[in-house]
């Protein structure tokens, strides 16, 4: 216990949590990693001790106690109902699970640090939004349903926990949409469709967070001392239309009245959850301000939003209908044609020049 942190990661079977656990294993200042999940984590974890349990299970409290855990990283918030068997179960798992975990942490004196993986969705998405949200901004109307509502409630409980246990450093990280080759989300699954559905007449501003950056920020927060709320996203923004072009896809604009029908169709046919708050997001988008991340944590994301998305496209080997090479070749052909035309005009001009006789 003296030589490093003893970390518990909930939801370790998730894509990002698995990467994060692997990153922690590689660090010297982490002595012990315990993963909790009901699903088996992906292979590749060596040092991590795995506990098959739901966060609501009392066994979690015992593990905290016995293993002398000092840092809890809560990453098991489900983002869509399809993975957890319906909206009611999802809410149960997300909110009640977080409450139970916080209760267990509160009565375990060894816990000194609590890190919550939250989401930028807590800011909502409206046309009256500021251009980019600072950590202190609140949405004008709190998210009314779904994942964003769960995340808002969990943040409130975590904040209350921080007030009750003042010796615990509480860090809340609000991430933008994850992209990268190894994580999966409803949003990135949209780009697996040949034509990406958009809402007709709207073009949201998007921000992406590369999974490598996310893992690095989580590791820094676990091993450093950074209480507070932080936005995490790549620099810059990308329009949805631009992202579609970057992926070589074509947009499929859906008029606003038919959007719900198309969302239902997507869910039934392709298991892609496009929940109502994500539909708002597809209309108005959102950007978050990462000044605090850069100044307080001192971390400059390696991937800008656009670079993160391009990396995602490259690793997923997304080949669109509009092949970039083909477009470049056509441009090259236009230029070559112009060069030829110039040359021919030059040659044609030669015989009639004045000093030839």
């Amino acid at each position, binding site marked *: 216990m003296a030589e490093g942190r003893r970390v518990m990661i909930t939801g370790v079977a998730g894509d990002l949590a698995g990467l994060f656990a692997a990153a922690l294993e590689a660090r010297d200042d982490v002595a012990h990693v315990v993963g909790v999940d009901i699903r088996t984590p992906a292979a590749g974890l060596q040092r991590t001790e795995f506990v098959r349990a739901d966060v609501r299970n009392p066994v979690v409290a015992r593990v905290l106690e016995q293993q002398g855990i000092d840092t809890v990283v809560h990453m098991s918030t489900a983002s869509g109902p399809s993975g957890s068997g319906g909206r009611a179960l999802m809410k149960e798992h997300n909110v009640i699970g977080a409450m139970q975990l916080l209760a267990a942490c509160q009565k375990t004196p060894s816990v000194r640090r609590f890190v919550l993986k939250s989401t930028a969705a807590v800011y909502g998405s409206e046309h009256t939004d500021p*251009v980019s949200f600072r950590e202190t901004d609140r949405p004008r109307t709190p998210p009314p349903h779904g994942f964003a509502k769960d995340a808002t409630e969990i943040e409130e409980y975590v904040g209350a926990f921080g007030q009750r246990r003042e010796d615990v450093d509480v860090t809340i990280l609000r991430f933008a949409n994850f992209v990268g080759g190894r994580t999966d989300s409803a949003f990135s699954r949209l780009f697996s469709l040949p034509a990406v559905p958009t809402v007709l007449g*709207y073009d949201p501003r998007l921000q992406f967070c590369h999974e490598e950056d996310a893992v690095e920020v989580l590791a820094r927060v676990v091993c450093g001392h950074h209480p507070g709320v932080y936005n995490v996203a790549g620099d810059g*923004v*990308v*329009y949805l239309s631009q992202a579609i072009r970057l992926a070589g896809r074509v947009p499929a604009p859906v008029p606003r009245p038919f959007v719900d029908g198309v969302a239902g169709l997507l869910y039934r046919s392709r298991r892609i959850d496009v929940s109502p708050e994500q539909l708002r997001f597809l209309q108005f988008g959102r950007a978050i301000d990462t000044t605090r991340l850069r100044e307080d944590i001192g971390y400059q994301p390696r991937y800008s939003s656009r670079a993160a998305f391009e990396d995602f496209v490259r690793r997923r080997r997304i080949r669109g209908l509009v092949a*970039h090479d083909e477009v470049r070749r056509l441009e090259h052909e236009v230029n070559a044609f112009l060069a030829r035309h*110039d040359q021919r005009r030059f040659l044609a001009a030669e015989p009639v020049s004045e000093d030839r006789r």
Partner: protein
Amino acid sequence: MSGEGAGHAEVISIAEQRAAREQAASGDARPRCQATTLDGRRCRNYAVDAGHCRVHSVRTDVPEPPSADEATDEGAARRRVDEEAARRGWQPPQDAFALLRDLLGADWGRHLSDAAAFVRRRLTGDYEIDEFGFDEDLTTHLLMPLIRPLHRYWWRVASYGAEHIPTEGGGLVVANHAGTLPADAMITRLDILDQTGRHARELAADLAMRTPFVGPFSRKTGATLASGPDADRLLERGELVAVWPEGFKGVGKPWRDRYRLQRFGRGGFVSTALRAQVPIVPTAIVGSEEIYPLLYDLRVVARLLGLPYFPIVPQMFALPVLGPFALLPLPSKWVIEYGEPIDTTRFGPQAADDPMVVFDLTDHVRDTIQHMLHRNLMGRRSVFL
């Protein structure tokens, strides 16, 4: 090789030598042409008639050269026009390339290659936008060129006082708003871009941001929501910000109230300028009132549709006759005048929280613009010329 060298070396034409050799070899005595060519040597063609070759034979059957009175016929006139055109460097286009050159100028090839690069950037998503969603590539290369003819030929905008616009650092351009459709915002943006090379960033009403197509379009052209935090952020970055504080009250005001400034919001733009300590450039736009004279505002319809106003404009009566062309804006003559910048540094940033200073400064800006409007209205000859 010429001049002094001529004394030592004799220049012998190879062709002449060969001709002499061939004549000696063949030994025939066919007569040669007797004419002297332009460069002073004898013509070496065989003579065909009367001691001259085919080229130099005196033609007897050719018509006389056209006399002065014949020069008035159609062919000669066309020839004269062609000669004159050739002298001026213009010929009627003979193929698609010549047509392109006439339309786009001598560097049409560069234009075409730029256009190809633009299309490639749009198709592959290879462009950058800033955090406000301003798509400079699209604005500079597509939208501004599209409205430039309106600026130059339709409304023939005359602009004065562009030197008052700050060439670097923050600044707040404040102008009057009119014309039923906010065309004055786009035209002023273009005028500022052409005069100073800077993109003025507009502050747009939240109704515009909510409306499909209009909202994303505004964002892509550099507008953002007219709210304190967004405006502060723009000015912090040292951008030039343009604001139309009258808002919909200005755009949708009836014809009888033309060139009469409406209430200038709540003076939020003044607090913003004070906080950022940037100069305010009062700007008067004359001509925008006449593009769509608003005769009547159907309030009931507007309320049903959730619009700020529902205009009846004279162009609507021409719809049955002219079809969609009737809805073109009227070609009034525009004048844009940028006034002396109003310095805000003498009040200090803390004055932003002093309502008295803010109200006074708001009134001062409003009066200045109203005065500039009246002066320019007095100066114009007619609405359309």
